């Protein structure tokens, strides 16, 4: 009886570790997604500002210590592409988060089952 209890305890510990790992992974994905969303918003703002500019207005891009003159339409398309890319990344993170949450649920259920396996033996004693 004690051996069975020990077995359950080990399994419980293992499930707990996996559950906590899933939780940490979810946390990381959420942080990444938040950063991406901030970048997305910034790029959207830049796009709006570029639209307001007249054709032929001078714009420059800062690459390292250099301000390089850019073509307005080129800049617009670069920013649009960046927005698309970031949106796709955000979606990817969201699917990761959803998958990890499903996994976490599975671990949580298993933990519940194992815990109920542990308690009855104690009651009998």
């Amino acid at each position, binding site marked *: 009886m004690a051996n069975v209890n020990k077995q359950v305890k080990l399994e419980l510990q293992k499930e707990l570790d996996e559950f906590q790992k899933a939780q940490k992974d979810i946390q990381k994905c959420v942080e990444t997604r938040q950063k991406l969303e901030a970048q997305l918003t910034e790029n959207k703002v830049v796009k709006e*500002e570029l639209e307001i500019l007249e054709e032929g207005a*001078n*714009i420059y*891009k*800062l690459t390292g210590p250099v301000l390089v003159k850019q073509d307005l339409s080129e800049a617009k398309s670069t920013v649009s592409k960046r927005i698309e890319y970031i949106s796709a990344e955000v979606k990817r993170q969201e699917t990761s988060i959803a998958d990890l949450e499903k996994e976490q649920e599975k671990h949580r259920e298993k933990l519940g089952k194992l815990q109920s396996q542990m308690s009855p033996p104690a009651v009998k004693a």
Partner: protein
Amino acid sequence: MASPGQQEVQLSSLTPPQLKMLHDQLDQEIEVLTSSMQSLKGAQNQFNESKQSLKTICPKNVGKDILVPLTGSLYVPGQLADADSVLVDIGTGYYAEKTLTDADEFFKRKIDYLKQQMDKLQPAVQQKFQSRQVVYEMLQAKVMAHAKQQSKK
């Protein structure tokens, strides 16, 4: 409002440790929201400063002596040459040449946008404050009731 009512029902069924956890969670959320508010206010001040400094770049100041920063601690003397256009940082490393009026409007837009965002945050902060207060009072009540029970025994 329906939600505080719903919360009340659930709150009274929570144990003191759970109430304490909820209280701490609300505490954290309030901190995050308040620091966001502060960042927004700081950004707004920066834009305001930029807007104010535009005023010094006017035609009557052309030719006046200025100090141009080359690095954080190295300045060289120069003269104000162009009072018609300025380079404005519009984000993600892009700078746009704008006239003084356009630049002024740009900063005004930014300042208004930030004000909008802060106005959006404000009610959320208020609500969290109130919720935390309610949770705290519920926690106090339960602790006192529990203490009374113990002393009766």
